[in-house]
């Protein structure tokens, strides 16, 4: 057979060229005899492809059969038998295992040769090594499978849609999975996805498509679909129009990703964040978040309220900002670098209950108690932020201070009561024996005058002691329902004649003023004391003495900061002057017995302590406001309701 082909090749130039081409294409050929079940001829390339030695073709050969890969053997032999039985051509691809152990893919095409005497007896076939092709195909298949897997995992589908034909040209399997449609569903004419789009999102999708079709803009949209199974899914679609891809046809190429899970997590996160945010927002405590540099990055409404700033003013401010005016409990400045937040940022340690006084922009001083909490990124040593929370303790401090003051006054009262008792005993012989002695002295004489002066001094001492007792005695008011207006008139009629004419007296009694259960004589004493103090503060220079009386309802919030006050209806008496005013130290001490700013001899220092004693005994309260050079105002509150008498256990 070889010889005959060579002969043909030699006789015809075209045959030679063909042979050459066969060699180059490594195309093997063979002839197979059905009756003998063996090859009856083949070329060198065939032997080479099968890994047989390039010996001259002499022996009978069973062809590829003994070399067939076990996985392919059945199929190939079956095909052979079928082709032989039917006298049919045959096209096969199969693997062989060559003698050297190498596995090769072969493509074997054969067809029966005409046999004029009966059914075909011989087949002529060609064999080509397609191992490389198969390997590339396999690689491609694997890479496509990987991509499909990735798309499935990412719930990412792609499609091609023909605008002119109004149908999908291509849809990936994942597309059906996402849409909840059976994969075997055929590509239908018409869009069967659009009806699934959530009605609320449809308009946006159409709008984007219109824009895309008008000027080639990309579609990039999140929308919901309602699947046939009733489930709602969030999709993210990115698509663009490829023009002229097939002639003048316009085709959308797009991807659709199911982002429902992302959306669910996002919404859960958002809800959890909102929950936390609303908790922080609703808190009465101020909460701020400060970054590594101490700048405020977040603050709740209470923080703004307590600090007296707007949210905008707070944001970005650092602890070092010179606009903070903060003081310590002892009144010393509280520098920014020692603020609790800054200490926590440096040390990574929390701070607890640090008291800070802070001047608000309106000039008022608020006291806050601060806690800080460091924040760390996982695995980091240094804190990157600090949460600083604070409570306003101004009222509490004020109530504590009032309580301390009232306890102090009470103990002074007890002490003063004891002293007064002793002094009264001492005054007995001083007065009594002096009187007895005077009687025995001549009418006119130095001794008598001297002893009379002793009596004058003793009388002054007696009055002083009486005042001390009035201060220490707090449970004696003989209370009856009294009207304040006539009392004020009465006191004014006493005070007015003795005041300097340079003092202008005004008084206004509001009709809202309630009657109060009180000891008229004691209230009288309070008013006289307050007015004479006011007059003294203005001195000869004069000024305005203003008395304002009204009824007020004191709320819990007001009473909280004042020791012993209970909410309810009160009569408020405010006595103010335009005198020299008082500094803070003086304001703090004015209710102490014997504390006086008047020069010796002008006052006993008992007046305001007596007022305090009386007001306390009536379950009332007294406030003082004063500014040096501007004047002073005392405000007294007397309850319009009856409470049990207040006893302080003073000894007299």
């Amino acid at each position, binding site marked *: 057979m070889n010889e005959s082909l060579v002969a043909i090749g030699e006789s015809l130039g075209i045959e030679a060229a063909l042979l050459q081409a066969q060699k180059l294409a490594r195309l093997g050929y063979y002839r197979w005899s059905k009756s003998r079940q063996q090859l009856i001829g083949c070329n060198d390339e065939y032997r080479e492809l099968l890994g047989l030695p390039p010996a001259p073709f002499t022996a009978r050969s069973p062809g590829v059969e003994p070399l067939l890969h076990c996985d392919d053997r059945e199929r190939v032999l079956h095909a052979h038998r079928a082709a032989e039985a039917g006298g049919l051509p045959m096209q096969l691809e199969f693997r062989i295992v060559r003698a050297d152990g190498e596995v090769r893919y072969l493509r074997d095409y054969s067809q029966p040769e005409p046999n004029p005497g009966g059914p075909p007896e011989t087949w002529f076939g060609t064999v080509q090594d397609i191992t490389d092709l198969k390997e590339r195909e396999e690689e491609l298949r694997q890479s496509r499978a990987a991509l499909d897997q990735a798309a499935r995992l990412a719930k990412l589908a792609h499609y091609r849609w023909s605008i002119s034909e109004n149908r999908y040209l291509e849809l990936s399997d994942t597309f059906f999975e996402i849409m909840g449609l059976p994969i075997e569903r055929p590509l239908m004419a018409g869009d069967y996805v659009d009806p699934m789009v959530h009605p609320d999102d449809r308009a946006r999708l159409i709008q984007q498509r219109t824009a895309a079709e008008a000027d080639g803009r990309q579609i990039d949209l999140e929308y919901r679909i309602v699947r046939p199974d009733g489930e709602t899914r969030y999709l993210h679609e990115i698509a663009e129009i490829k023009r002229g891809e097939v002639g003048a046809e316009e085709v959308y190429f797009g991807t659709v990703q199911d982002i429902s899970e992302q959306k669910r997590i996002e919404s859960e996160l958002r809800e959890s964040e909102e929950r936390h945010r609303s908790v922080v927002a609703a808190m009465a405590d101020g909460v701020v978040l400060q970054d590594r540099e101490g700048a405020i990055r977040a603050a709740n409404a209470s923080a703004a309220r307590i600090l007296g700033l707007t949210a905008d003013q707070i944001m970005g401010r650092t602890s070092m900002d010179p606009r903070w005016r903060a003081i310590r409990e002892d009144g010393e400045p509280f520098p920014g670098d020692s603020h609790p937040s800054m200490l926590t940022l440096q040390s990574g340690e929390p701070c607890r209950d640090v008291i800070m006084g802070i001047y608000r922009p309106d000039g008022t001083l608020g006291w806050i108690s601060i806690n800080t909490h460091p924040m760390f990124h996982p695995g980091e040593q240094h804190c990157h932020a600090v949460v600083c929370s604070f409570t306003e303790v101004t009222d509490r401090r004020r109530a504590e201070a009032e309580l301390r003051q009232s306890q102090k006054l009470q103990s002074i009262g007890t002490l003063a*009561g004891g002293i*007064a*008792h*002793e*002094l*009264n*005993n*001492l*005054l*007995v*012989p*001083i*007065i*009594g*024996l002096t*009187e*007895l002695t005077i*009687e025995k002295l001549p009418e006119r004489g130095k001794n008598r005058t001297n002893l009379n002066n002793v009596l004058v001094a*003793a009388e002054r001492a*007696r009055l002083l*002691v009486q005042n001390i*007792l009035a201060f220490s*005695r707090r*449970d*004696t008011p003989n209370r009856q329902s009294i009207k304040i207006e006539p009392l004020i008139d009465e006191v004014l009629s006493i005070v007015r004649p003795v005041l300097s004419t340079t003092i202008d007296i005004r008084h206004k009694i509001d009709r809202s003023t309630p009657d109060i259960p009180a000891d008229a004589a004691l209230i009288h004493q309070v008013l006289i004391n307050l007015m004479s103090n006011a007059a003294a503060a203005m001195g000869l220079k004069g000024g305005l003495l203003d008395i304002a009386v009204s009824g007020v309802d004191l709320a819990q919030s007001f009473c909280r900061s004042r020791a012993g006050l209970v909410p309810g209806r009160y009569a408020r008496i405010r006595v103010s002057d335009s005198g020299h005013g008082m500094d803070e130290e003086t304001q703090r001490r004015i209710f102490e017995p014997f504390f006086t700013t008047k020069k010796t001899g002008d006052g006993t220092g008992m007046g305001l302590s007596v007022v305090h004693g009386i007001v306390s005994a009536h379950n009332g309260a007294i406030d003082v406001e004063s500014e040096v050079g501007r004047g002073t105002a005392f405000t007294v509150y007397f309850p319009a309701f009856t409470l049990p008498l207040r*006893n302080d*256990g*003073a*000894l*007299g």
Partner: protein
Amino acid sequence: MSTDRLTTILVADDDRLVRITLRKILESAGYTVFEAKDGAEAIEVFRKRRPDLVILDIVMPIKDGVRTFLELRGLDSKARIIAMSAGARSGKIDYLSLTKRIGANGILTKPFNRASVLAMVGQILLDEKSA
């Protein structure tokens, strides 16, 4: 009370100077004065002397004035007693007003002058005589 003997007054006070002063004032008006420096002594003197009037300080050691007052009235329900105080109170109790409530014949507040003491003493003794 008989008028044919001198009117006697018991002054009970823990303060010696107060006792001396009252003795001088009362003696200057012709009264006879006994002294007691505490409640117990006051009871003892009262038993022995049966004075016409007792001026009793209500804040005293050993036996306080209120208890003494009650014991004196126990000895003689008609005993005339002036309760005397220098602004007395202890804790929640105002002894002076208490004594007044339980029936002291008079309340004398320290310090006092001679005239007021004699006026009060004279009035109480006079009331008694006319009674």
